[in-house]
Structure formats: structure tokens, C-alpha cells
């Protein structure tokens, strides 16, 4: 009998932006949806995020942005993942973005962008549908 694997998600913020309400709320609700959430909190660098994601062997990395830093840090994180050969996990982002930036972020390597105002179910369903059990 093989146990059904629990989905492991790393939730984090990168850089100096300190708006962590969204990251904390999402973490808490993903936990209630039965996932294991590694919460890294604020002030991370691309290197520390990818290192923690590797150590924890997560299925999903969730980035929370607010202050317009998404276009600066996303490519750096994706590069770091590629450098470590760790690009076979789901990379999602949540927060404050103009609609125009969403295709750009997807081109940069984000699998799915959730804007402010997203309901929890949309995030949970997306993760469950896209992580191989």
C-alpha cells in the first residue's frame, strides 16, 4: 500500500517588501486544504528560496509580491532554479500586478499568476490539478 503523497508548498517573499498578509493567509488556507506549507516569510533572496525549496523537496514554490518587485526578482529566481537543475516544480505567484505583466511573468517562467481578489479555491484547485500525486 503506497501512501498518497501530501503536496508540499513553499511560500515566501523576496527582497525588502514587507506586505506579508497575503503570504500568511494563503499559507494558512493551503494547510487547511491538506497541504504541507513551508513558510519562509520575508527578506529572502533568490538563492535562499531555491536552497530551501531543494532541501524540502517541495512540489510548489509560491511567491508573494506587492511592490512592483515581481519583474525584478522573478527572472532571478527562475535562473537560480535552472542553475540548480530544480525547474521541474510548479512556480506560482500571487499579489499585486497589472494585467499587462501577467503574460510577461508567464514568459519569465511563472506557471500561474493569482492576483489580489483570488478565492482560495482557485489556488487550491490549480495546485491539486497540476501537481502529480
Amino acid at each position: 500500500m503506497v501512501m498518497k503523497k501530501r503536496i508540499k508548498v513553499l511560500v515566501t517573499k523576496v527582497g525588502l517588501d514587507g506586505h506579508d498578509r497575503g503570504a500568511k493567509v494563503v499559507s494558512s488556507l493551503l494547510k487547511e486544504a491538506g497541504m504541507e506549507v513551508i513558510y519562509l516569510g520575508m527578506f529572502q533572496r533568490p538563492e535562499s528560496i531555491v536552497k530551501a525549496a531543494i532541501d524540502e523537496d517541495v512540489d510548489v514554490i509560491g511567491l508573494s509580491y506587492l511592490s512592483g518587485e515581481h519583474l525584478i526578482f522573478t527572472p532571478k529566481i527562475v535562473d537560480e532554479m535552472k542553475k540548480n537543475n530544480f525547474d521541474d516544480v510548479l512556480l506560482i505567484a500571487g499579489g499585486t500586478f497589472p494585467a499587462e505583466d501577467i503574460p510577461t511573468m508567464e514568459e519569465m517562467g511563472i506557471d500561474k499568476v493569482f492576483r489580489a481578489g483570488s478565492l482560495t479555491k482557485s489556488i487550491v484547485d490549480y495546485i491539486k490539478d497540476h501537481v502529480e500525486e
Partner: protein
Amino acid sequence: MGETNEKAVQNTQEGNWDDYIKAYYEKPASFKSWSGYDLAEIYTPEHRPDENYKQNIADAGTYPYTRGIHSNMFRGRLWTKREVVGIGSPADTHERLKYLSQHGGSGLNTIADVTYEMGLDADHPWAVDEVGLTGVNITSIKDMETLTKDIPLDKVSWSLITASTASSVTMAQYVAVAQDAGYDIGILRGSIQNDPIHFRYCGFRPACPLDLSIKLGSDVMEYCTKNLPKWYYTTVNMYDLREQGVTAPQEVAFGFGIAMCYIDELIRRGLDIDEFAPRFTFYVSCHMDIFEEVAKIRAARRMWARLMKEKYGAKDPRSMQFRFAVHTAGCSLVPQQPFNNMIRIAYEALAAVLGGVQSLHCCSYDEPMCLPTEKAHLQALRTQQILAYETGVTNVADPLGGSYYVESLTDKIEEETLKVMKEVEDVGGMEEAIRTEWLDRQFESEAVKRQKELDKGEKLVVGVNVFTTEQEKTTPLGVQKVSSNSAKQQVAEVKELKRTRDINRLNDAVKRLRDDANDSKNVIPAMIEATRASGTTGELLGTVREVFGYPYDPMETIESPFNF
């Protein structure tokens, strides 16, 4: 027209009248206030059996100021229409300031970016990526000169939005520039946010350890009390607390708790309550429940008056007057169907004005997407102008006073706020609530509740969980981009300044700052001198941090350049 008909025909053919019938008979989803209080169907005199008008309500301008701090309210003077500006380099911000002031903005509001609030110079390794993204970084006196260039500091009222421990440096930079330009600082008008305690909850914990927050926050207050009598030296920021997801009574109770931390310290330093309390101001949120927000403001005014009189023994009426600015609730805005935000902002601004606000900042409709564009910024200002000049809401003081409902809700908010204040007392007071992270836990659990209300449809937000439509592909009035060139330019200038300044003069000034901090003196005078000697934000704060036993650099990446 043709399309509508086509759809109508289709609906009729399919017998699909369900939506229509449902919409016709629709009732409100909830009869609770935003903060979750059950409301009666109608409020009557029976809800107010023990009404004592003189004691609990009283005319505007009369203790306990429930109805407003001035007897004639807006007839005396309209509220200050502030729009917060902070973008790119000091020069970029200066340009936008001039633009708004030429379009009827009546106050100058500049906001620090994350790097400045954290106390980092523009050339700090953590800062270089983010300088100017969400505000402006003032690293040196040169930057402050650029920001204030050609602006008559003796005539304008400038609101400096720096909240963290870096407020001390901002104040020093502003005073130094004003003095160097020949102004008598005794006549400077304006305000500085200077509420480092609350700012730990906005992601600036490394820059705002509790003891240093109280020390530097109070230094600014004390300095201004003695040298800038027309300056409002703190804006206790309830708004940011509310943005964490808490209820209206929690907003007031936590805000008062933090205000009392500063008051207790100033009294400990030997100041009389009436010497400084008249310059205390607050920043309040206005959320979507119009009546609850008005009731909250009225309750806060009454409670503050009583607190100052009864607990602190204030005698000067001005000490008892709850003066506040409103920031419409950023967290009430969503990127779905973005134009709806303009309507939300207008209602929230209405609540602020009905509550008797002194100074108002309307969010821009595009805040949940990007920094405000020029068009959105102007639209926010226009929202205020329509309210002030077209709607007639400015004619009468406290127009909702005497409403059975609003008076009952005011009492309810007061009662609930007192309950929360008691909770804080039970965990050992505000400082203890902060130290033990009790307050963090309140914020976290309330924020989760708010999201669940949306998820379950207990609170409705158009475009989010009701009347949803497909996601927009573009932002209607365009997107504000931050020029990374000007920020890079600033970084280069900071490096150049550090290379060319007079090191001996700087060392002497920093030494004096360190000595003053060591001797528990007020550090603002020494900071002013160190600023003049081209000492930077990071250097000034880092020096004081070290005296208090904290690492020089809040991000613990760089070392102090001073070795004496």
C-alpha cells in the same frame, strides 16, 4: 442593442428567466456590519433609553468631541486634500509634487520607499534592486535638497511619510535643509508620520526593534515640541493596522495602545501632557461600511478625549481633540473590474468626510495593480474635489449625529473597543502584547477570517465573489512604470558623495551622535549636524543602532564604515 435582444430571445427560448427572477427578489446577503455586529431592522428612540446628549455626544467643538473637534467644522476650513507621492528618484518625486500642487492639491505628501524606511542607503546591496519602487529614498542631505527645491517651505504644509525609526533621520534632513535655506524652523508647518512601533507590522521589524522605536520616535516628538511648535510630529498609524485585516474596534484599540507607549515615554522624560498632546495626530482607515466607519471615528473622538482627560489629566482642550487623517482602505480595492475601485474610494471618502476628517488621502483606482499613474492620481484628487464642492456634505457639522442608528453604532464600537483594550491590558499592556507577539497572532487570525468571509460569500465584493467577469487584459488608464534609470542614477550619486565628502568632518559629527546616544540625550540635534556633514541615512541610524546593541545594518549584510 441588437446583442441584448439576441440574448433576450435566447433566454426566452430556453426559458432561462431564473437569473432575472432571482435578481428581482434578491435581498442583502447579510445584516451584519463589516466588523461582524448584528444590526436591528430599524433604530428608534427605544434603542437610546439613557441618552445624555451633553455628556456623551455634545455639540461639535465641545468635550467629548464626539461630533467633531471644531464647532463649525468644514465651514471654517475644508479638509486638506492630500495625495501621497513617492516614485523613483528624489528628482522624479519632486516633478510629481509640482504637478499635483498645480492641480489643486492642498498639501504636499511624500512617502519613503522600502529601502529608506528600512534605513538603508540607496547603494546598500539589498537596496539597489528596489530603490524608488514604492516611494523615494533620501540617502543624504543632497537628496532632500533635490526634493524640496524651489518649494517655499515657510508657506507649504509638508507631510513627510516616513514611519520607521528612519523618521528621526528624515526630520533631521528636513530641518537641516530648511535651516540651510534660511528658514526659521519655528514656523515650519507639516507633519511626519514617525510611528516606528506600528511599522514593525508593516514588514520593517529589523528596522524597528521596540526599545529603539520608542526611543527614536519619542526623540522626534520631544525635539519638535521644543523647536517646531507648528509641526505635527507623529501620526499614529491605525490605518496600517486595519490593513492587516482587523475590525474597526481593533483598529482603534491597537492604535490607542501604541499612542500610549509614546505618551508614557514623553511623560517619563518630564514633558507635561498639555505641552505635547495637542500635536498628536492619527491616521485612520475608511473601509466600505459607511455607517460603521463614521461610528468608529465618532467613538474614537469621544474615547480619546476621555482618555486624555481622565487617564492623563490633560487640561488643554486641544490635548483632548482627536485629530486625524484618513487613508481610504487600500485592501478594499481589487484588480477585478478595476473601475469599480473609483466607486469604492468615493464611498470611503464620503465616510471620512461625514466623520469630520482633517486631512484625506484617496487611494488611486489602480493601487491593487501598480503604483498610481498620473491619470489615476488626478482622478483620486478629483474624487475629493467633487465631494468638497458638489455634494453639499460640508455644510453641516456631523450630519449623521442624532441618527438613532449611528449613535447606537457609535456606542457599540466604543464598547467593543474597550473590550479589546481590556484584552491588551490582560496580556500586560501594549508593549508586552508586542513583545510576546500576541498582536501578531491577532493580525494573522483576523486576516484569515477576512479571506474566509470572501471564500464563503459571507462578504460580497463585486468582481471577486459576485458578478464576476473574465479577467481584463489591460489596465484601463495604463500602467505606471518606475524608471530604473533614475534610481540607478541616484545610486551612482550616493557612491560619488561617499567618495568625495570631508571624512574628518563626518567622523566628528558621527562621534558626537554616538556620544549623545550613549548619554541618553535626544539624538536629533546631533543627527542634524551629521546630515550636514554628509552623513547618510544608513550611517546615522546604524550608529544609533550600535549604541543600543543592535547590528549596524538591519539586514546584517554590511559593516559600519566607522572605526573609532
